[in-house]
């Protein structure tokens, strides 16, 4: 049988190498204990009730349907046909990365955000947070009008009082400070400067809650300009990352994911692959993709960078700026080989670091300089503007505030009371300031401490622009009229400086004077194509949502003198852990904490929803005697904070394989004000439990554990003590839900254990490609993988597929597991949020889930596998439905007919891939206002109905009608993009027609890396996976080398 070999992959520590309950967990029919008393409802009473119900239903059913009104426009806009969706190019307001989006509006309402495929940075991808930012527009708890002292006021009143106070501050030469997150909008920056110029003492302080301040400061030292390089992962053949989660959360993950993926694997006749090494303390999705991942504690990182610098300097034949600091973790051998690889690939190599240690960043600059990467994989001529915060200036401002020296403070796009370590001191400082104005659209921690709240428009309601990378502009246009009485910051500032002007006029004026003269055609070849007069340039820019401009050429020579050895980290005592605070892919710095889609998105690695937690490695957990869910007290013994007592926070613990043993990691962005609303998320029923913790919020704020050291915010390295409190807290993790297991008693055709995911090394791929090239081409697509063993004919081959035959391909080498597809699917298909309690009951509704498999024990490796309905040709679900609510379409889809479904759940029971979801309740949206974001092209399912992915059949049908209207016989390849495919930053998902031999999906199905999950059971799924490839030697070559 060959079934004795255990599977290489496992899903969680408890089920994997960690221990014992493996079989019980995965094979129990009921994952939750059935501890409720048996029902007292007898068969007779059931029949009575059923009969009565039927009678009532018949009576009611005979009446006429309720009267429905149809209300047309009074004056119909010429460009709008009701019922047709229109796409407007704009920009994403989710963070400062400035990705391009296409806003899908239907009958005047934005209902979906898609990536703009023509955007030069994001290339059509859009992350989970970007997708979900649609819900912020329809958030009923938005600040709907200006507030003065917490009370609603009119704009006239607010303007009058603010201008009065500003006049007296101007007269008394009081200091005015403008505090903001990174602003990439050149128009807004110019307006802020104009506004501040009216005061004798004014300053603009920028900071980022997820700061990259050290990189900017390091470039100030080495290049004489405080800039953030534009990293070109698309050009890097060798990438070495020191704790930079560039595929998940670092600076501009969508852009970096696209670049990284585009250079990752070149599947020509001689396959070529980039090489990626990751040194990190916690397990990030970037580390999960790495060819070599080394666990390194935060205090070991500076030495690792120095030793790499020494090796590179030796290779370059230049004097090493740092002394050889000996050995340690990571081993010298690894660093030596890496240095060699970097050197050979130069200038197409790239070293990045997410560290906030300025001196380590200076060394990273030295390495990149020695490799000649500046000008190749790091652009400083056209630098990135996505992070410009200065922690040093922030610290100075905080001091000023605490001393009560600031007369007026304006706060835009920042929440310092929440996300800085000394938040209460800042709140205190704010209360000492005469005039405090917040522009926040949410009544967050800082806005509620501010006297004036002058809410800004949502990004989808406003005109605006962004320059994420010097010379590349994203133009934002409104997709809906403002829903509430908000006002753009541009207009507020203009009004307060006494020259009121609309945001549109300000923006246009800036573009006429600053952008238009420097215009460049989008491929960068001169100005001719970009529009001769301003109006046509403007129209083209609004239509595309993008513009390119020429930039002044400046050179920044490298100053070698600045390079010095990084300070050795202070040693931690034996009972201390090193703390790592990190942002999660979904929640980031916490600005989207009010967004239920993001709260319910499982973390790509831990698969936990609705909470943050203290992660420890399995070894550390064993040492401390911790089990998952044990609440631990984290105690920060601050070394730098004079007089401040120990900071403590109590969090549930989570055992995270692949984490460094001396590290505790905690996610930032939780415990936000405004998450109290989620206490009632999910269905209301007798066994329903609250979705929030004992503080009444979702998760806990870890920002008090941050530290300011050496002029920058430190996210890692502080010593922390862990003690068990003895309490328990349940974490809603989806990692053991919907597990694919092959029962041991089923004999397999072919007689071998086949893994659910497949992995290859480049060497193995080369062999495969050669084998495929020399073998005669198969006469048709391989129907099954085991042709030598006849499949017993349980299913008849009765699907002729004469027209289209839809299929999806997922390239697992490209997939990073980031979860953008999950939220895209949720937005497209009206998938409800069920709440933490229901997730604990295994009732999450996501149609596409991303299975995360570990392999190995100590240094685990991770593979992500998006799993949606596989649309099997021989579908086990179809054979068991008693009412034919799930049947096969002529084009290969397992149709799910909601109105026919009676909810027996047999199909879900019989689904080998566990991709069906049942509506246990009518999951009304917690926030009724957010129903405005529902997609009118997809039925909202009600209680008792099964649902699942159908390859976005509404998009297929729309494309069919569109192509037939234009006289095409068939839907062209690429005309239909599923929601998951559209948003994928890595473009890992391909949808198309297998019957068209030239389609991308048909080519994918012929790829030698292709496999299907559980293929040996002859379900013949329509989802084709391409195996994960890692750039390393195959086991065989390694062995041969060892012996040779």
């Amino acid at each position, binding site marked *: 049988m060959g079934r004795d070999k255990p599977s290489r992959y496992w899903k969680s520590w408890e089920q994997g190498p960690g221990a014992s309950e493996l079989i019980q967990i995965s094979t129990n029919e009921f994952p939750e204990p059935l501890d409720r008393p048996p029902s007292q409802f007898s068969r007779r009473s059931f029949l009575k009730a059923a009969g009565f119900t039927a009678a009532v239903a018949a009576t009611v059913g005979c009446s006429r*349907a309720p009267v429905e009104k149809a*209300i047309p*426009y009074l004056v119909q806009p010429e460009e709008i046909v009701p019922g047709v969706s229109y796409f407007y190019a704009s920009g994403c307001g989710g963070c400062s990365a400035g990705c391009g989006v296409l806003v899908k509006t239907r009958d005047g309402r934005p209902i979906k955000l898609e990536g703009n495929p023509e955007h030069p940075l994001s290339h059509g991808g859009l992350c989970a947070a970007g997708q979900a930012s649609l819900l912020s527009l329809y958030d009923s708890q938005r600040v709907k009008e200006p507030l003065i002292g917490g009370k609603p006021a009119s704009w006239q009143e607010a303007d009058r009082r603010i201008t009065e106070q500003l006049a007296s501050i101007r007269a008394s030469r009081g200091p005015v400070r403008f505090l903001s997150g990174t602003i990439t909008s050149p128009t807004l920056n110019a307006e802020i400067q104009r506004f501040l110029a009216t005061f004798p003492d004014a300053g603009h302080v920028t900071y980022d809650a997820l700061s990259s301040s050290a990189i900017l400061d390091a470039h100030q030292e080495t290049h004489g300009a405080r800039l953030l390089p534009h990293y070109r992962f698309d050009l890097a053949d060798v990438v070495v990352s020191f704790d930079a989660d560039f595929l998940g959360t670092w600076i501009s993950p969508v852009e970096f994911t696209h670049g990284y993926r585009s250079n990752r694997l070149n599947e020509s006749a001689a396959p070529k692959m980039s090489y990626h090494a990751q040194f990190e303390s916690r397990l990030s999705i970037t580390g999960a993709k790495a060819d070599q991942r080394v666990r390194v504690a935060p205090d070991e990182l500076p030495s690792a960078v120095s030793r790499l610098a020494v090796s590179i300097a030796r290779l370059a034949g230049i004097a090493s700026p740092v002394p050889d600091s000996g050995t340690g973790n990571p081993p010298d051998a690894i660093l030596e080989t890496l240095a060699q690889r970097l050197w050979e690939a130069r200038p197409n190599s790239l070293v990045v670091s997410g560290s906030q240690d300025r001196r380590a960043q200076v060394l990273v600059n030295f390495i990149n300089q020695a490799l000649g990467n500046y000008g190749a994989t790091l652009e400083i001529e056209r630098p990135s503007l996505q992070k410009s915060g200065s922690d040093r200036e922030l610290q100075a401002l905080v001091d000023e505030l605490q001393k009560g020296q600031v007369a007026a403070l304006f706060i835009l796009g920042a929440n310092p009371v929440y996300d800085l370590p000394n938040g209460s001191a800042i709140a205190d400082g704010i209360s000492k300031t005469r005039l405090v104005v917040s522009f926040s659209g949410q009544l967050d921690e800082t806005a509620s401490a501010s006297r004036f709240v002058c809410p800004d428009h949502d990004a989808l309601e406003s005109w605006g622009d962004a320059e994420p990378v010097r010379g590349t502009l994203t133009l934002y246009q409104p997709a809906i009229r403002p829903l509430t009485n908000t006002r753009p910051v541009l207009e507020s500032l203009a009004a307060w400086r006494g020259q009121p002007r609309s945001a549109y006029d300000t923006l246009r004026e800036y573009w006429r004077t600053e952008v238009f003269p420097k215009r460049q055609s989008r491929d960068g070849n001169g100005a001719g194509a970009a529009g001769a007069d301003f109006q046509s340039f403007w129209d083209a820019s609004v239509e595309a949502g993008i513009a390119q401009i020429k930039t002044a050429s400046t050179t920044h020579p490298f100053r070698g003198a600045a390079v010095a050895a990084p300070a050795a980290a202070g040693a931690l005592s034996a009972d201390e852990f090193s703390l790592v605070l990190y942002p999660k892919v979904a929640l980031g710095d916490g600005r989207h904490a009010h967004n239920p889609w993001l709260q319910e998105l499982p973390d790509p690695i831990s698969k936990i929803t609705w909470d943050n937690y203290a992660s420890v490695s399995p070894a550390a957990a064993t040492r401390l005697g911790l089990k998952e869910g044990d609440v631990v007290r984290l105690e920060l013994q601050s070394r730098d904070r004079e007089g401040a007592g120990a900071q403590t926070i109590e969090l549930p613990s989570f055992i995270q394989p692949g984490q460094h043993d001396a590290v505790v990691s905690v996610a930032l962005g939780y415990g936000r004000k405004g998450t109290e609303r989620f206490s009632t998320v999910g269905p209301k029923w007798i066994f329903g439990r609250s979705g929030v913790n004992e503080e009444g919020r979702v998760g806990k704020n870890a920002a008090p554990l941050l530290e300011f050291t050496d002029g920058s915010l430190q996210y890692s390295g502080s010593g922390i003590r862990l003690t068990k409190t003895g309490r328990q807290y349940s974490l809603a993790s989806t990692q053991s839900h919907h597990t694919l297991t092959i029962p041991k008693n089923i004999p397999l055709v072919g007689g071998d254990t086949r893994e659910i995911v497949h992995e290859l090394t480049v060497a193995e791929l080369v062999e495969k490609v050669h084998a495929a090239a020399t073998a005669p081409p198969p006469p048709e697509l391989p129907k099954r993988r085991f042709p030598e063993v006849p499949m017993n004919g349980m299913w008849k081959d009765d699907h002729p597929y004469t027209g289209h035959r839809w299929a999806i391909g997922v390239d697992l080498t490209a997939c990073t597991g980031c979860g953008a597809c999950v939220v895209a699917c949720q937005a497209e298909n009206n998938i409800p949020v069920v709440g933490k309690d229901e997730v604990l009951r295994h009732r999450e509704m996501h149609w596409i889930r991303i299975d995360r498999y570990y392999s190995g024990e100590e240094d685990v490796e991770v593979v992500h596998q998006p799993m949606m309905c596989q649309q099997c040709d021989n579908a086990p679900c179809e054979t068991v439905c008693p009412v034919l609510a799930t049947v096969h379409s002529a084009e290969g889809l397992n*149709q799910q007919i909601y109105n026919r479904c009676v909810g027996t759940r047999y199909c879900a029971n019989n689904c080998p891939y566990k991709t069906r979801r049942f509506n246990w309740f009518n999951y009304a949206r917690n926030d009724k206002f957010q129903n405005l974001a529902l997609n009118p092209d997809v039925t909202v399912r009600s209680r008792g109905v099964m649902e699942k992915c*159908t390859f976005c059949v509404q998009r297929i049908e729309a494309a069919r009608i569109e192509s037939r*209207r234009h006289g095409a016989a068939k839907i062209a390849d690429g005309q239909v993009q599923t929601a998951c495919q559209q948003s994928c930053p890595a473009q890992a998902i391909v949808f198309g027609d297998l019957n068209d031999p030239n389609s991308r999906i048909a080519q994918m199905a012929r790829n030698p890396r292709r496999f299907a999950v559980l293929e040996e059971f002859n379900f013949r799924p329509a989802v084709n996976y391409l195996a994960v490839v890692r750039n390393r030697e195959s086991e065989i070559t390694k062995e041969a080398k060892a012996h040779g």
Partner: protein
Amino acid sequence: MNTKLVTIVLGVGLIVSVAVLVTQSSTLHIPGNQEGYQPPQPIAFSHGLHAGEMQISCFYCHSGADSSRHAGIPAASTCMNCHRYVTAPLGALREEDELAKKENRRPAPIVSPEIQKIYDALALNPKMEPDSQKTSKPIEWTRIYRLPDFTYFNHSAHVSVGVDCQTCHGPVETMEHVRQVSDLSMGWCVNCHRQANEKGIAGKQVRASLDCSTCHY
């Protein structure tokens, strides 16, 4: 005694039900079947006059029919394309014209009370200019043809292959007051799809899908 009473009550019930069935069978319908539905509308608009007598194309008002899921109900601005000038039935206007000629005076403006409703909706004064004293208010028509929320019908798909409007909506051009002429049941839809596949539409071969997901998703 008790059983006797029950029997009598049940018997009477049975007789009454049978009687209702026999006499009312023409108006009984299965749940959801709205065939014959003819609700009152806010304006006594006559399709017979506009589409029949005047021979205005259906698409002039229902302009979404060939490009959108919804055929659409015309905006008041569409009505105004004609009714800026046509303020009353032609007969009434002509009568007043002749009367005025006889009495040797300028004809008085005549506005039919039904057409006045359009002007009111748009808040227009008698000179057809926006009246700031009035507030505009959209016209609330009562929807007749209605499918359940789980059924997706697309007008443009049918119009583009040449299905006549009358196939589903009946002889609207003869109707003074529109009523639903088809039962809009699934069987009715599917039968038409089957027949179209066999016989074609307007002499052309068509492929009308019979997959559930054509309409349900």
